[in-house]
């Protein structure tokens, strides 16, 4: 009975939505109502205003930077929630649940070569975020997975000396507050046309161009990497 009702409701919803899709403008025409002068303004003026060659990065980190700020805070909230739900205190009753330490030498030797390569690739995607596709999110995820690989191979005790919990939490909270400060400074001085010192735009095509784009990219990457690392360690048995 419940199955027929659910399939019936779904089919009704799909038919109503498909009748709406019938009326949409044709796919891929250039005079669609969605391609109005807002998109034309963004394409024309992106390099002069922000100094970014990648128009999408210029939009999400300069024209609409508050969207990125609130979305970083959504990631921060998710990591805090998982921390609240799944963290175990350091009781004495948990000492018999050992993690399986991998004793093979092949993994340790290969990981000494591969993990720095993964981190350099992730840092490349973050630093060139305004010149080629990528940005803070993808690069941050790649660095986070390299930390996860480190933790899988070397076990819990060894990794906790290197990346302790207190230091990671301090970096996470500091990153998001620093993002808010930087963007607030740029917003206030730009909006009121004050002549306070600002990072220069530079020539498009260099890494150090674009004013505030590079620091904001690095901060977003740091937030994403620490969140991904927290997700893994909390799901695998609570961390210290």
């Amino acid at each position, binding site marked *: 009975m419940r199955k027929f009702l659910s399939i019936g409701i779904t089919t009704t919803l799909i038919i109503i939505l498909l009748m709406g899709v019938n009326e949409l403008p044709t796919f891929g025409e250039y005079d669609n109502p969605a391609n109005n002068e807002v998109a034309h303004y963004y394409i024309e003026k992106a390099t002069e205003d922000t100094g970014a060659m*990648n128009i*999408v*990065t210029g939009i999400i980190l300069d024209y609409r930077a508050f969207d990125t700020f609130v979305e970083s805070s959504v990631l921060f909230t998710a990591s805090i929630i998982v921390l609240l739900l799944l963290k175990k205190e350091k009781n004495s009753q948990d000492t018999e649940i050992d993690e399986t330490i991998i004793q093979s030498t092949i993994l340790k030797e290969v990981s000494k070569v591969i993990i720095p390569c993964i981190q350099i690739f992730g840092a490349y*995607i973050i630093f060139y975020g305004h010149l080629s*596709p*990528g*940005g803070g*999110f*993808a690069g941050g*995820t*790649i660095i*986070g*997975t390299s930390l*996860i690989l480190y933790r899988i191979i070397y076990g819990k005790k060894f990794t906790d000396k290197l990346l302790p919990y207190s230091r990671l939490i301090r970096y996470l909270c500091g990153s998001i507050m620093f993002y808010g400060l930087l963007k607030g400074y740029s917003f206030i001085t730009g909006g009121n046309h004050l002549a306070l010192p600002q990072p220069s735009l530079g020539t498009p095509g260099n890494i150090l161009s674009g004013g505030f784009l590079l620091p904001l990219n690095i901060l977003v990457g740091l937030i994403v990497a620490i969140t*991904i690392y927290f*997700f*893994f360690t909390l*799901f*695998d048995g609570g961390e210290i």
Partner: protein
Amino acid sequence: MLMFLIGASVAVSTIKSLLGAIIVFMVYSLIMTILWQQLNAPDLAITEAAVGAGITTILFILTLKRIKGVRK
């Protein structure tokens, strides 16, 4: 490409073992990445490849280990 996506999502519904459903979901996410590249959005393709086919699958498999049940 779209037919493969629709077929994969129907297969997620009918496969009974949870591990098989998670693997098919990872393939679905990967085909979605190729589709983003066909529609000329490279930023989204890189982000979806790293996040969808990487992090979501790892989280599902870790949950499966915690609930101690790979139903045959």
